[in-house]
């Protein structure tokens, strides 16, 4: 961890602060939520990395999607993701958001989460253990250092396509488009 390197802080304090203060939206869905309480309590302590769960998406900057995503949950995930302030990061746990996982032939779960909201990284496993979650967090630090964790920028630029995918899945959406200027009809 380079949390104690003062020169890096002075060069770009915002980026360093984003790395070492992840507030996670406590959006508990899917089977992977069983691995989150052990990660944040006393045995595998996540608070020493600065990770702490918060109750509302307005105060958060990391969105952990733990496990399979059914179509009903996807509506809630999109609305929660759009409420988080920029810059924000998304990490998907398990093999279900990658390619459908164990539920690849289910009538109700989606097969690839990246088509609907931008995902910065995946942590493979079914479910990944807390040690794997921490290794994933260190990889996310490296991505933030290299400026590659730009999911929120991609959402802003390609919002037309994300919205088109969401509307192709759900039909009519109840909420209006988020970035109206970019939609050119």
């Amino acid at each position, binding site marked *: 961890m380079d949390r104690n390197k003062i020169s890096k802080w002075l060069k770009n304090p915002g980026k360093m602060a984003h790395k070492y203060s992840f507030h996670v939206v406590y959006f508990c869905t899917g089977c992977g939520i069983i691995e989150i309480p052990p990660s944040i309590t006393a045995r595998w302590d996540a608070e020493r990395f600065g990770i702490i769960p918060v109750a509302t998406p307005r105060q958060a900057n990391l969105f952990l999607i733990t496990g399979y995503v*059914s*179509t*009903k949950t996807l*509506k809630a995930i999109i609305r929660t993701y759009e409420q988080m302030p920029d810059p924000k990061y998304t990490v998907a746990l398990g093999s279900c958001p990658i390619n*459908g996982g164990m539920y*690849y*032939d*289910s*009538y*109700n779960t*989606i*097969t*690839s989460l*990246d*088509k609907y909201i*931008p995902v910065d990284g995946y942590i493979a496993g079914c479910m990944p253990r807390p040690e794997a979650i921490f290794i994933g967090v260190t990889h996310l630090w490296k991505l933030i250092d290299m400026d590659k964790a730009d999911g929120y920028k*991609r959402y802003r630029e*390609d919002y037309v*396509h*994300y919205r*088109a*995918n969401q509307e*192709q*899945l759900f039909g009519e959406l109840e909420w209006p488009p988020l970035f109206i200027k970019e939609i050119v009809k």
Partner: protein
Amino acid sequence: MASIIHKGNSKMTDLKQMLLSGFDDININIPEDNRMVVSTKKESVLSILIYLKKFGYNHFALVSCNDWIDDNEFELIYIVSAYQKNDEQYQDIEKSSIIVKTRISREKAKFITIIDIFENAEPYEREIHEMFGINFEGHPRLTPLMLERNYKIPPFRKDFDTNKYVENTFGKIPSIKERKEGNK
């Protein structure tokens, strides 16, 4: 009526005798202690359930459904059990449950609701209506319970092809890169 219950295995055989004498076109077997399986025609289900409820089997566990596509029939399965008797709990060795099975036709999939006998059957029948397409007449609220969209064939039926559905719905949605390249 509840005083007729004897403790031990003789209770089940007594009940079997009473049911065989009271209803016709009924088939009973006792696979193990404290379990009984009753198969009847669909017209007798309501009266058998009322009879069992008066007998002391007043806890309704669940109603479930099987899809016998080769016989062109649905099979409805009701499980009732008795584990409380006059504010005294039965001990484990005396708990018993009875399974009541019927068959209904697959083309005209409808049946009557048992909410008037057991009130807590309401969400189970709602789920069976949503997943199998069986219409329960008399049910006050047959709205979707868990699913978010309408399907042409109800998803738990055996002629619903899950792989084809996934290909047509989720597989046809392109990734963001493909959309951007398609636009250019």
